């Protein structure tokens, strides 16, 4: 195999540095003992993490994001699983069109979705409501749940189901005892990715959130536009830590590579 030479490795080191630098600085700054953005050169303090607990707006934003993420990821998984099974198992007219349609939100800029929902919800009186946020998030994250579940369903050998049928199992039993267990990792990782995407979503949520339904990213965005202080860095540090944990879980389940690229390594 061709190895990486010193030039390649130097480039790689700089690239990794580039990727990691902004995340690192956010974490570092959140430990500053001073009252403003600074590097913690004089010592480390947890005051800004404590400050989060005293800030009801951030706390409620966190709960809203959490609830929103759980509800919308659950709903989109419920919608995505049968659709994925339909596309993976059956040959029917319109299959490609339906598949493309269900994945289409990936092609629509979130800003467009945001203003569309703003317009749509205000004419329905749903503007700024939690239900409105759920609907918006379900649309945005469903393609992610669908893609992973679809990959699991198509990756599974269909002959296994046929073997179960030949041995006398009813279709419900085949689904419950054979299909579901085999595609479960795909479903769970699809659900997890959908949750993460919902939790992180900003651009669309900015338009359809209201003061009582502000998600965490929106709260952070509004704060940053006002002034940047170490507390928002502290919140970010917690988010980074949480994401790392979820990311490791996803990697364990499905392999981060398969998640993004779609294929296990050769």
């Amino acid at each position, binding site marked *: 195999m061709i190895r990486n030479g010193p030039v390649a490795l130097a480039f790689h080191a700089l*690239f990794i540095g580039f990727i990691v630098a902004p995340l690192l600085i956010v974490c570092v700054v959140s430990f500053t003992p001073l009252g403003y953005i600074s590097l913690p050169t004089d010592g480390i303090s947890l005051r800004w993490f404590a400050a989060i607990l005293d800030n009801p707006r951030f706390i409620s934003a966190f709960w809203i994001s959490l609830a929103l993420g759980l509800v919308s990821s659950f709903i989109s998984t419920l919608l995505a699983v049968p659709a994925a099974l339909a596309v993976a198992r059956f040959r029917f007219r319109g299959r490609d069109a339906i598949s493309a349609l269900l994945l289409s939100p990936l092609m629509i800029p979130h800003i467009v979705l945001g203003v569309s929902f703003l317009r749509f919800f205000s004419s329905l009186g749903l503007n700024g409501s939690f239900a409105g946020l759920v609907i918006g998030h379900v649309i945005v994250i469903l393609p992610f749940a669908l893609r992973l579940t679809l990959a699991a369903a198509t990756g599974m050998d269909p002959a296994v189901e046929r073997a179960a049928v030949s041995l006398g199992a009813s279709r419900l039993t085949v689904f419950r005892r054979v299909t579901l267990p085999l595609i479960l990792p795909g479903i769970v990782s699809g659900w997890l990715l959908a949750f993460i995407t919902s939790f992180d979503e900003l651009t669309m949520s900015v338009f359809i959130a209201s003061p009582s339904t502000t998600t965490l990213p929106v709260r952070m965005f509004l704060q940053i536009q006002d002034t940047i202080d170490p507390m928002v860095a502290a919140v970010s540090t917690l988010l980074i830590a949480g994401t790392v944990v979820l*990311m490791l879980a996803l990697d364990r389940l499905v392999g981060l590579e398969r998640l993004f690229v779609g294929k296990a390594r050769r």
Partner: protein
Amino acid sequence: MKPQRAAPYLLSLPALAVYAVFLAAPIVSIALISFQHFEFYGGIQPGFTLENYAQVVSDSYYWEIFGRTFAIAAVVTVLCAVLGTFEAIVLHRMDSRWKSLFLLIVLGPLLISVVVRTLGWALLFGSTGLVNRALLATGLFAEPIQFMYSNLGVVVALTHVLVPFVVISVWASLQRVDPAVERAAVALGAGPATIVRRIVVPLAMPGILSGSVIVFALAASAFATPAIIGGRRLKVIATAAYDEFLNTLNWPLGASLAVVLLVANVLVLVTSNRLIERRYRAVFAESAA
């Protein structure tokens, strides 16, 4: 069997129904409103007019915004394509253990909210000034460079946000190549640079192209990063639409911006995917054996 044939349609029905009501309808409604007239004191008036599009297309204010948006998107795309491709090649050649670790590091940030990533750049550019301190330390620069509230800063931050997409795309292309192909080139006498130039990059090209298209589409429609790093003065299409909708309240005008962005996005994505597929079909078709 009737029930058998209806099954796939029934299974997709819930998702399709949700889409019909909650995706198609909102998009249609925003398209409709873009054709309506806005009065500052009267609000949105009924009736059909093309004045919003006319304004968007003729006003120099919007020309500047379109120009900035697409220029930033173009530069970001080139940077991401170059950096992302080389990183993907380097990763492709690594040992298993390192490969997994660095893939995690490079792709992981995609799971972190764009607000957090952009905050990091705001800190590096602005309050801590670390980037400038580092640049000055290398001795190559005499003065600090203005990153915050500049197009350059937006470009750098957007490149950071979007480069993983190119890495993913190029990585996927390289995975499809038989590793023995590089060895064959070595055996025929090719040096390392020749192998990258004549073998690896051409084989990765479909990935480079499709990754670049994704980056361009996302960069042109980016909101958070230009808002935070660019500030109020440097507007892009997304932040201009935000202004119209939430500040000026001229929804029809904002809607026309959104429609232009949507149409451009879909066109770019669909046509380039077709072109890439067609161009590379001969090369990557399933073997006739």
